[in-house]
């Protein structure tokens, strides 16, 4: 029996691939403008490196799409433990950047927390496959998945990377609407969450992190710090207008008035240069991709495939949402990249894995 079934090739999900391709191209075009600012002639290193990573990511995506995903279920515990090992390794040898210890290897070339998200989803999908969410009606049934989630988040918190920890938690919470939990339990969860947040603010947050949140609530209080980023981002987005300034024509972008514009604030470049029309178009493609992903979950005949697809959609949806909300001034400044748009090898790679697995689940939906 070959690894790749002929039927699954026939059922290849071309629509999904097309959506991915459109978003990747939009992302690259936008990144070329964002990274070009201040670079004299030629392509900047950022773009060159990004294209190289894209090549590798395409390969990874292909492998993830064609090797039967049920192998993934078998190896889920190993993958999960390995991701925890990498996170732990970061703690020991990680390179400290911008106050957080999230990078393995010099030069920030590898960020284990990006992969931990996907590994977590794989592990949770396996659990919910064996214990279908519809049968979960009591909170104590949630203890095992809670532990699965707590392990990587705990390790990420130890690295003092609060933004990524929050992101990982949100990814895990994607499964929440699937559970059949009564209203009373929901209020208990909400109460716990509020208490947890209060404790976090007092004990868990470093002063710069508290500052960021205060800056978000009142950007003008200290325009020098992250509030400054928020103001600049809002100005850039606003100056885009209806049609935008045009590619590589945005003054805010090209004068490099935007902070980290090729990574975390890449969406504000898009908004300035392509305006309301362009940004809405990108949002439309994004939501189309995410909904298509949910449809893949819905139409999968296999419990693991369905659960996996839901989680993978979560790994794409949450960073995108947090990032765009931050750029639009709707959320505090958290260093989360926008999938397929931000510069960054690990993020692109983990997105490629997620998209590849989604394709995988999609084309095997008729197999069973």
């Amino acid at each position, binding site marked *: 029996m070959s690894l790749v079934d002929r039927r699954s090739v026939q059922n290849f999900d071309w629509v999904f691939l097309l959506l991915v391709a459109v978003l990747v191209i939009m992302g690259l075009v936008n990144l070329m403008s964002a990274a070009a600012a*201040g670079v004299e002639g030629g392509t900047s290193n950022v773009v060159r490196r990004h294209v190289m990573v894209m090549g590798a990511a395409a390969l990874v995506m292909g492998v993830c799409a064609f090797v039967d995903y049920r192998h993934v279920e078998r190896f889920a515990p190993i993958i999960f433990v390995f991701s925890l090992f990498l996170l732990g390794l970061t703690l020991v040898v990680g390179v400290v950047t911008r106050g957080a210890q999230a990078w393995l290897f010099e030069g920030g070339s590898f960020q284990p927390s990006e992969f931990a998200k996907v590994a977590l989803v794989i592990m949770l999908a396996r659990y919910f496959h064996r214990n279908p969410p519809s049968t979960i009606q009591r909170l104590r049934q949630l203890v095992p998945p809670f532990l699965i989630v707590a392990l990587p988040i705990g390790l990420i918190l130890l690295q003092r990377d609060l933004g990524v920890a929050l992101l990982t938690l949100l990814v895990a919470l994607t499964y929440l609407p*699937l559970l059949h939990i009564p209203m009373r339990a929901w209020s208990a969860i909400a109460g716990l969450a509020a208490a947890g947040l209060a404790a976090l603010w007092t004990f868990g947050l470093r002063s710069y992190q508290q500052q960021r949140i205060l800056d978000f609530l009142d950007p003008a209080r200290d325009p020098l710090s992250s509030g400054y980023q928020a103001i600049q981002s809002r100005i850039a987005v606003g100056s885009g207008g209806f049609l935008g300034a045009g590619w590589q024509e945005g003054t805010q972008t090209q004068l490099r008035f935007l902070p980290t514009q090729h990574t975390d604030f890449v969406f504000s470049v898009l908004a300035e240069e392509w305006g309301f029309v362009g940004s809405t178009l990108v*949002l439309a493609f*994004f939501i189309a991709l995410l909904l298509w992903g949910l449809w893949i979950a819905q139409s999968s005949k296999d419990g693991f495939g369905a659960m996996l697809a839901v989680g993978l959609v979560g790994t794409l*949806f949450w960073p995108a949402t947090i990032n765009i909300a931050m750029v639009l001034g709707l959320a505090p400044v958290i260093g989360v990249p926008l999938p397929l748009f931000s510069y960054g090898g690990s993020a692109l790679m983990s997105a490629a894995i997620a998209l590849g697995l989604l394709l995988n689940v999609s084309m095997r939906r008729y197999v069973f």
Partner: protein
Amino acid sequence: MIGRGLSEDRLSSAEEAPSELRVGLIAIIMLIAFTIFVVRLFQLQIVEGADLASRSERNSIRSLRLEAPRGDIVDREGRVIATTRPAYRVRVIPSEIRSPERAYSVLGWLLDRDQVELASLVGEPRGRRRFQPVALETDLAYLKRAQVESHRYALPGVVTDMTPRRHYVEGKRAAHLVGSIGEIGAAELGREDFPSYRAGDVVGKSGIEASHEAHLRGKVGGRNIVVDVAGQEIEIVNEVQPIPGGRIVLTIDLDLQRAAEEAFLSGDPEVPNHRGALVAIDPRNGEILAMVSQPAYDPNAFAGGIDSSAWSALVSDESKPLRNRAIAGQYPPGSTYKAIVAVAGISEGILDPEKTVFCPGDYRLGRHTYRCWKPGGHGDVNLDQAVLGSCDVYFYQLGVELGVDTIARYAKEFGLGRPTGIEVQSEMSGLVPSREWKERARGERWLKGETVSASIGQGFNLTTPIQLAQAFAILGNGGTIHRPHFIKHLEAWDGTDRHYPERDAPKPTALDSAAIERVRQSLVATVQHPEGTGARARVKDVVVAGKTGTSQVVRLKLIKDLEDDEVPLRFRDHAIFAAFAPADDPEIAVAVVVEHAGKGGGAVAAPMAQKVLARYFEKNPVEPQSELTATAQTLSGTLAQPEAE
């Protein structure tokens, strides 16, 4: 394996009917989030964007970077050495030039430059580079400034502003110490220690400018302004004020620094050029009071970006004006080393200072003969006489008795052979030769004859001027190392937030203070006795202790047939002098090296040290020392040929 897995999967998927999966709820959450985004984009881009646009169709927002002025560097009394002054800059934003021909002809007339040249300087950039201002003038003279300002209305697309520019008030003064600045290099831009820099930024390249870059730099700000068609500022949208760089207060005394530099420039007229270095240290705490390296360069030339021909001229200049000889120049210490050998001799119990040695003018060891500098010799000399007359034979004999390793041990106690640890980079370590060193570095055995030259500071010995000053500071304070430094304290630009750098605790050496005390007496004789080789370093009312040195650059026989002034410059001897004063409780130690002076340290270097010492005691008078005459007399008594002054 896979077949089995398949059947299990089929089973479980049957349990989980797809219809039970509530993905619809997730889809709704996602749709809500993205709808909020679209609404927000509409608010920011259409509602608020239109509001901005309606103020003026042709108004545009321009973003300016507000440079932070670099911090001042001042001397110990607060006198400014390096500061920042405003420079008037004229720039053109290509995308906003309406009629190029007219604009460049007006600009050419105003700036007194060729309009074609200006036009080609700006060119016709495409794409994003149209927004990047091109500088036409970075430091326009005051009168032209007024002209440009009065015609601003006629020049859309031309922006003028004041930018901070580094200014070294006295030009070459303390140039090597203060250092220079320049545009940040491509290699530095990628480095972790230059996180917030971008191409075109100014960064310290040498001296304090480089070593204290982080403190001096300050923090840039920014401003978004609305400009009209003519490029005139209409309103400020928002701005972030720059924070000026911090101030550095040096231990340098500008008066002494001036005296020292003038000593070099107005030295012995018979010496062809005064290259070399001078370092003055406070032996009580290691504070550097003056540091000169000659020839110097004017760091102002770098402040506005040095052009490549001027740069290559500086780099290829054979006199090496960019090099800080005070810390990176390595010279044989010559006879100044005898002070250290004498301390070694007394401490080891080998040397009786009062016992005389006969100097016939040469010294034989095996088949070799080593000459004393004085033809005919010094006759019978004790320690005081040997030091003040700088008798070589006396120290040849002592050195051979001590052995090179013992001498090396003492030299290292005096801080030689390793960097002093001063705050700036590129300090050299000098060299204290020993058997082990030669074995390791050259793979050869130490020859006994080499001990002979080592004992008078020749041969392999190398010291930097700052090491020499430190060694004499240790002789002066009785054997304590205070790490030399020239930063007194750092403070914010407005004088607040004063910060004293951490200092090493004074480190006692293993030196015998009684031995040092005895040698100090000989050093006093060297200066205070009429026949002393260092007599020209005498200062009124102050007892000075010092030692001259003349370090050979090449072997004598190479040049022995030539008259003094026929010797090629690069073969001429270095003149050296090191001293401290007042002898019994020193407040200042000085070391001077004059490269290729062709004359002895007593003739060339001692008078230069004298000028610095005299200036110091003019500013910081000491009680006229009544023992002065007494000391001189006692000394005279011990000497073989007493002579009235």
